[in-house]
């Protein structure tokens, strides 16, 4: 039985949701509409003139094989970032959940990286892996491995994935830990009494009960990997070597703010908007079915 509050008339509920609608309209619909409008023009950077090109910007982009390759790069990057940041966070959360003493201190320490801005995190990782003066690359050199992410595409991708995922682990850790602690002890204890070992308990009880958290984090992390990682990429690789780490959002930034090509940049934003909408719809339609609330 669901409890539902009902309003008489339409005006009061409308008034109550008005602030939310206004905020969405001003900060989402208006800029999104502007982006769609701008994507139909090639404007000059100073806004002195605009050339109507219709779908010309989209044609230009989609016929560029480097832009198409950037979709694949983005997919690989997002999947890796999401897997690494969620996997490590879940592992740490499970360990922290089992702690009895000093869990507060561990938790606090594990949350710290979240406070580091992506660009700063990028610089920190860059220093450690600097091909000539980096600490990590020096140790790798001692082991006989020649680290060179400025020319090796795989290494560059690995580095930006780790740097992007690192700060995110804390965030995911917090949610996983809260999710784990919300699972009733009695259920787990009952299973333990029935003779279920840790792994069985995790697979059959913890994981299904944790699925709402996992699903939420999956959506949030993919959006993070799509949109908020460009600071890291900008500081570490600037999209290189060649185009190995040029993800879609980085290209939006570099075409718009480095190249002053606002038409192409706007068209790319629209494409990105469509891609993320489709992804989110897929996630809610297919993956959410398997979530137990």
């Amino acid at each position, binding site marked *: 039985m669901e409890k539902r509050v009902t309003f008489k008339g339409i005006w009061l509920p409308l008034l109550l949701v008005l602030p939310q609608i206004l905020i969405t309209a001003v900060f989402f619909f208006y800029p999104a509409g502007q982006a769609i409008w701008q994507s139909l023009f090639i404007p000059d*950077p100073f*806004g002195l003139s605009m050339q109507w090109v219709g779908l010309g910007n989209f044609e*230009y982009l989609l016929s560029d094989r480097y832009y198409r390759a950037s979709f694949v790069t983005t997919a690989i990057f997002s999947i890796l970032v999401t897997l690494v940041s969620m996997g490590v966070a879940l592992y740490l959360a499970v360990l922290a959940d089992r702690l009895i003493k000093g869990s507060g201190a561990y938790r606090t320490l594990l949350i710290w990286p979240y406070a580091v801005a992506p660009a700063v995190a990028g610089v920190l990782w860059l220093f450690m892996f600097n091909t000539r003066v980096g600490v990590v690359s020096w140790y790798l050199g001692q082991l006989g491995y020649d680290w060179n992410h*400025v*020319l090796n595409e795989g290494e560059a991708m690995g580095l930006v994935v780790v740097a992007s995922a690192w700060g995110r682990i804390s965030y995911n850790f917090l949610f996983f830990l809260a999710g784990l602690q919300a699972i009733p002890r009695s259920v787990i204890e009952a299973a333990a009494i029935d003779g279920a070992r840790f792994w069985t308990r995790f697979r059959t009880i913890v994981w299904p009960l944790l699925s709402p958290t996992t699903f939420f984090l999956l959506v949030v992390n993919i959006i993070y990997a799509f949109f908020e990682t460009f600071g890291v990429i900008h500081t570490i690789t600037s999209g290189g070597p060649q185009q190995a780490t040029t993800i879609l959002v980085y290209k939006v930034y570099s075409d718009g703010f480095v190249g*002053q*090509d606002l038409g192409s940049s706007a068209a790319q934003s629209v494409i990105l908007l469509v891609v993320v909408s489709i992804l989110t719809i897929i996630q809610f339609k297919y993956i959410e079915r398997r979530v137990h609330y």
Partner: protein
Amino acid sequence: MKHTISILAAAAVLGSAQAATAATEIEFWHAFTGRLGELVAEQVETFNASQSDYTVVATHKGNYSETLNAGIAAFRAGEQPDILMVFEVGTATMMAAKGAIKPVYEVMGDGFDQSKYIGSVKGYYTSPDGNMLSLPFNSSTPVLWVNRDKLAEAGIDPDTDMSTWEQVGGVLDALKEAGVSCPMTTAWQSWIHLENFSAYHDVPFATQSNGFDGTDTELALNGAAQVAHISAMGQWAQDGKFIYAGRRNEGGANFRAGECALFTESSAGYAGIKAEAEFDFEVRPLPYWKAVADEPQNTIIGGASLWVMEGQSDEEYAGVAAFMDFLSSPEIQAKWHQDTGYLPITTEAGELTREQGFYDANPGTDIAVIQMTAKEPTANSKGLRLGSFDQIRGIIDEELEAVWAGDKDAQTALDSAVERGNALLRRFEQAAR
């Protein structure tokens, strides 16, 4: 007692406010921090103290790209500064923005003597009919930095001739043989090894006089000379004789740490190298290929210039002219040149520096000036004027990385750079129409 103080304070505030309104404010947005930022502030203070009609207010707006973006955004909002610093690759963007900028020669008025500015410095910023559109502010040019100790350790005479790439090739062989881990590295690969390379060998980087004659220009950097050079560099990279450190000046850290023997970098690297290098270093002219040219043409500049924005009052433009006149004066220019390692923008400033004995006390600091001014610039060596050039450099960086990694040969990579760069040029042409 308390009252007297507050009255005095109020009077002081009023007094200073009056002084501020009496002088016309000139807004100047720049991209300099650290030591360079301090030197700019010093110039501005000296100017403000020298007269009472104008007050220049200098504001730092981030790095080059950010400063340009801030200027563009401000113009769109009608809040543009009087003077905006724009890096050299943004030149075509500014030139195309006809309603947004006021050419410097117009601001300076009738008595403006453009001939006192060094041709190869101002050339980058002049219109096809030779009028200065912006005022060069900080300009540098690439040179060859040599770690003399490293050469000596490897059993090579530190005074060995390295004027040509053929000779450098021989030195690199010897360095590699002696077990040097980094025989040569570079900064700004596109600027030095393609843009300057083309000017220095008097071959076109792009058609239409490198874009000076129109926006319908196409890249020509896949010519035989450039392909031969990049091919040789690629071979050196494969052999471990040329170590690639990154797209910007990452290689500088390796050179300053004494790891690399040779380093192609801007002449403005002087201050940093002098401060950090614990070895005997030397500046040499940029090498050229004897097989391509009997003697080198001039190199071109990098750096930034000052653009005057449209839409200000006549008094403000008079103030801008006074400030630019001040910046161009021999004393101020000579001091700037000596403090920063940037090139002087006027011939007089260079001569003054020589008279003051600076070049004798700091050998090699005049190499860049000589290299820039030895010959009258040709259509291929006046500079580059290409739209979306910051992005085109990004493309060139990508393609060169493919050569250094051994994924592509020089011809394929440069052909691809031309094809991709031309697509951007066509878009720029359309936007600027």
